[in-house]
C-alpha cells in the first residue's frame, strides 16, 4: 500500500503552515507582546496536534483501502493519543487563557 507520498504531503503542508504562522507571529510580538505570546502558544498547540491529525488521515486511508489489520493498529494508537488530549483538555484551556 503506497501511503508515503500523500502522508508526506500532508505533514509538509501542516508543518509549513504552522511554521509560517509562527514566523508572522514573531513580527506581531514586536508590536504587541501579549497577543503575540497567545498566538505562539496556539501555534505550539497546533504543532503538537500534527501527529494525531496525520494518524487520523492514515486511519481514513486504511479504511478506504480496507486494510483492516492496519486500521486496528492505527485506531488503537489514535484512541491512546485522543484520550491523553481529552484528559488534559481543561488544562489546555486554562493554559491558553492564562
Amino acid at each position, binding site marked *: *500500500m503506497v501511503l508515503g*507520498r500523500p502522508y508526506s504531503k500532508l505533514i509538509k503542508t501542516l*508543518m509549513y503552515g504552522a511554521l509560517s504562522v509562527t514566523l508572522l507571529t514573531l513580527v506581531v510580538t514586536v508590536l504587541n507582546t501579549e497577543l503575540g505570546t497567545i498566538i505562539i502558544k496556539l501555534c505550539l498547540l497546533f504543532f*503538537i496536534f*500534527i501527529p494525531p491529525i496525520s494518524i487520523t488521515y492514515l486511519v481514513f486511508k486504511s479504511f478506504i483501502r480496507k486494510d483492516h489489520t492496519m486500521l486496528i493498529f492505527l485506531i488503537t494508537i489514535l484512541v491512546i493519543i485522543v484520550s*491523553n488530549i481529552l484528559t488534559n483538555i481543561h488544562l489546555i484551556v486554562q493554559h491558553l487563557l492564562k
Partner: protein
Amino acid sequence: MITAFLLFAIATCIGMVSAALGIGGGSLMVPFLVFLVGLDVKHAIAVSLFSVVSTSLSATIVYSRRELVNFKYGSLLEIFSVVGAIVGSNIAIIVDERLLKIAFSMILAYSAYRLLRKNENKTLLKNSVKRSLTLSSLGSFAAGSLSGMLGIGGGVLKVPIMVLLLGLPIKVAIATSEFMISLTASTAALTYYVRGYVNPYFAVAAIFGSFIGASVGSTVAVKTKPKILRIMLSALLIIFSTTMILSCLGVEIWS
C-alpha cells in the same frame, strides 16, 4: 535573543544527527539545554520534546516521500512501545535503577555488536516473519518499559529492534522509527505544555532549528550507504552504553 540563537544552532546540529540515525535526540538535547543554556531540567525536557517532534516530523516528510516508512510495522510496534512505557513507569519504583541501567547498557552494547556484524542483504524467510514479528513486539514492549523506567527516549532501541529482530533494511528502520517517535513525543509534549513548562520563544527556536537540521540529516541519510549508517548507529549505541555504565559507577560526564 542570544540564547534563542544558541538554541537554534544546537537544535540544528542535534536534529541533523538524530534524523539521520532514527532517534529523537532528547537525550542529546537535554544536557545541552541544562548546561549550556542554563534551563532547569523540566523546562529543558519540555523544549527538547518540541525539538524531537519537529525532528521526527521533518524526517518523516523526507523518508515517507521516498516510501521508506513501514506504517504497518511502525503502528504495531508503537502500540507495544506505549503500553510498555506505561507499565515501565509504574514499576520503576520497585526495581533497582542501577540494575536497570546496567541491563540497558548491556542491551545497547550487544545491539551495536550485532549491527556491525549484520549482513544487509540477508532477508527473512517467509515462515520466520511471524516469529520475528512476535519477537519484535516483545522487544518493543521491553524498550518501552525501559524508557518508562529510566526516563529516556526509546528511539535508540527502536532501530536495532527493527533491523535485528524484524529484518528490515536500516533505512526503513530509521524512517519507521522517526514516524513512531513523532507520535510518542507529541503525546509527551502535550503533558509538559499544559503544565506550563514550555517557554514559547525557546520552543520556537528549537522547532525551527530541528526542522532545518532534520531535513538535511534525513536527506543525507537517504543517500548514505547502509553500512555507514550501521557503523554510525553502532557508535552512538556504544556512547550511550558507556555513559550509562559510567553513571552507574558514579561518574557523571555532563557534570
